[in-house]
């Protein structure tokens, strides 16, 4: 009997130790590990609860007419990250972080300055002011980016097709290092279209020796219209 109990306790301790090791590896992620080129493993979308206004817009969404992709316009950082194949690059500097998204050639600069709010920050992507203004800070080994000032329009066309954002939206991204994996947990707060904050968790895998390539999107090559008779 005692031997059985001992074996059971041994099993429990082994499982607990394995879980602690796994958990410890996660917690051991260092902020320096955020640097690199990353490809998307998966995206998990949290509970979506739209206001009647958000529901109405989503019901009316027509991807052929309303998807900004067809004009080579990145709708939002969430939309960009939902595109599975083009990777993203993170490079940390003394007082700013650059995040380069291969999709649509978006080059984002996030200042890291104590006390700086997103509203006071410059536009994160000079060529695309509709993406808003971002300010970053570290919370331990996690990089937290606050974004405000996004223009009203389509927020997502892939993960949640037809999700709209108002100009009151605020977005918080947490970049969490984990060795050769990284998570970006994005939370959208939008009092106009969301009943409760919407969280999307992007899981990334490091792309060894990866490089960001030119995307070079041209509207005439991206539009859906090109397939319609008489348009070529």
């Amino acid at each position, binding site marked *: 009997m005692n031997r059985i109990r001992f074996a059971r306790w041994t099993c429990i301790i082994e499982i607990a130790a394995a879980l602690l090791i796994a958990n410890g590896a996660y917690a051991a992620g260092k902020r320096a590990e955020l640097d690199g080129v990353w490809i998307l493993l998966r995206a998990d979308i949290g509970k979506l609860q739209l206001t009647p206004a958000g529901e109405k817009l989503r019901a009316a969404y027509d991807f052929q007419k309303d998807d900004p992709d067809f004009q080579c316009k990145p709708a939002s950082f969430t939309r960009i990250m939902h595109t599975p194949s083009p990777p993203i690059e993170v490079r940390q500097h003394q007082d700013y972080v650059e995040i380069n998204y291969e999709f649509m050639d978006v080059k984002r600069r996030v200042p890291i300055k104590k006390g700086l709010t997103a509203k006071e920050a410059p536009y994160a992507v000079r060529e695309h002011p509709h993406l808003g203004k971002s300010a970053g800070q570290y919370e331990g080994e996690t990089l937290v980016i606050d974004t405000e000032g996004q223009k009203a329009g389509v927020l997502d066309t*892939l*993960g949640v097709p037809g999700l709209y954002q108002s100009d009151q939206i605020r977005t918080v991204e947490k970049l969490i290092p984990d060795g050769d994996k990284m998570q970006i947990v994005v939370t959208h707060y939008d009092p106009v279209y969301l009943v409760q904050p919407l969280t999307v968790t992007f899981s990334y895998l490091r792309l060894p020796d990866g490089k960001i390539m030119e995307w070079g999107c041209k509207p005439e090559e991206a539009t859906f219209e090109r397939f319609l008779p008489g348009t070529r």
Partner: protein
Amino acid sequence: MYRQFAAATMMVTFLFLNCAEGLAHHSVAANFDQSKTLDVTGKVKEFEIRNPHSQITLEVTKPDGGVEDFYVEWSDKNALMRRTVPVDKIRVGDKVTINVNPSRRLPNLGYFRTATLPDGTVLKDCGFAAYRESVAKGTKITC
């Protein structure tokens, strides 16, 4: 016990890698019927490797003898390059058979699955999930 734990970890990793496939093809799934396939035979009129999607235009002969264009969408240029797909084997003027998932909206559009070339070579689209798996395993793919 450790073997079981390792097996469980491998299973979780496998599921983790596979879960992303649905997302990887979300827009493709929305626009193309992945439950159906169609063989389209024709002459390669144009082949443009580009972003956000590459495109092959096939000149297809209709039963009445007339000719019409059929468009085949494929992965973005950067993905094809990273996956080292030998796209240069597809040449303008060649007669090829391309197996596609047909468009949900347009009769003259499909999404690339395989291409059978004049010499019998078959090019395959493994998709992004296979590429991601190859990165995780440190292996190479050519599809």
